[in-house]
């Protein structure tokens, strides 16, 4: 047995990245998003992430996944959401992908600037999602890869 044999990484060569700590594939429905978030919560707890940070991650992923349910897949068409998460020294890294429609214009939508001094009847009831995602993540990146949407980000717990 050559020296250093046991130093060989458990998972493939250095060229193949280690598998994520969490990998979930779930149907693109509101109820499945809720269940996936509860499952993610349990897994993050097992990775020794603290309760408040888990809550933050849950907000980000709820917005990302519900956007896919509501906008990427047409109504009555089934699709799935794939989520992976890796714990790194700098925090948690996420990748969320789906095979739905491309984001409008192929870019991450901007934060909506709502007029909160508007009369009560004109106050916004939606359009908060991408603002929350932008506020709570860092290194947010979107890529259309053939028929796949890929969103990558890190949680920015320290930022907010």
């Amino acid at each position, binding site marked *: 047995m050559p020296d250093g044999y046991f130093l060989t990484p458990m998972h493939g060569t250095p060229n193949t990245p280690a598998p994520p700590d969490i990998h979930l594939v779930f149907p693109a429905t509101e109820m499945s998003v809720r269940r996936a978030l509860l499952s993610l919560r349990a897994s993050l707890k097992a990775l020794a992430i603290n309760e*408040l940070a888990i*809550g933050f991650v849950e907000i980000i992923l*709820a917005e990302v996944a519900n956007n896919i349910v509501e906008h990427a897949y047409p109504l009555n068409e089934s699709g799935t959401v794939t989520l992976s998460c890796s714990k790194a020294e700098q925090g948690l890294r996420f990748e969320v992908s789906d095979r739905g429609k491309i984001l409008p214009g192929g870019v991450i939508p901007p934060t909506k600037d709502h007029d*909160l001094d508007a009369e*009560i009847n004109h106050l*916004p009831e*939606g359009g908060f999602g991408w*603002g*929350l995602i932008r506020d709570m993540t860092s290194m947010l990146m979107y890529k259309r890869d053939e028929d796949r949407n890929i969103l990558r980000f890190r949680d920015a717990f320290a930022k907010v």
Partner: protein
Amino acid sequence: MNITSETTGDLQILTVHAPRIDAVAAIQFKDTVRELTADQETAVVLDLNQVDFIDSSGLGAIVASMKHLGKDRPLHLAGLTPIVAKVFALTRMERVFRIFSSPMEAVQIDQVKSA
């Protein structure tokens, strides 16, 4: 969704007995608040102390409920848990509501005001 109602003086207090107001629960939340506040005329305090998660659909449902009550019946919030408070802060919607630490605080301030 289980929401209970109690009227104290000039305030109707609605307590949400659910851990989440999310996309799944949003419509049910709106409908239940609508039912419970019909036939009433007072301001409303929404006690969110048992709610530990809200997403933008849930937030939208609370804003919709406020609009439905109209200008003369303000909807106040009470008992925001950390994650719920964070969502209201980041979306700046905390500016739109009067927020009390507990329903009791809302009742006390209301009594002072009407004394």
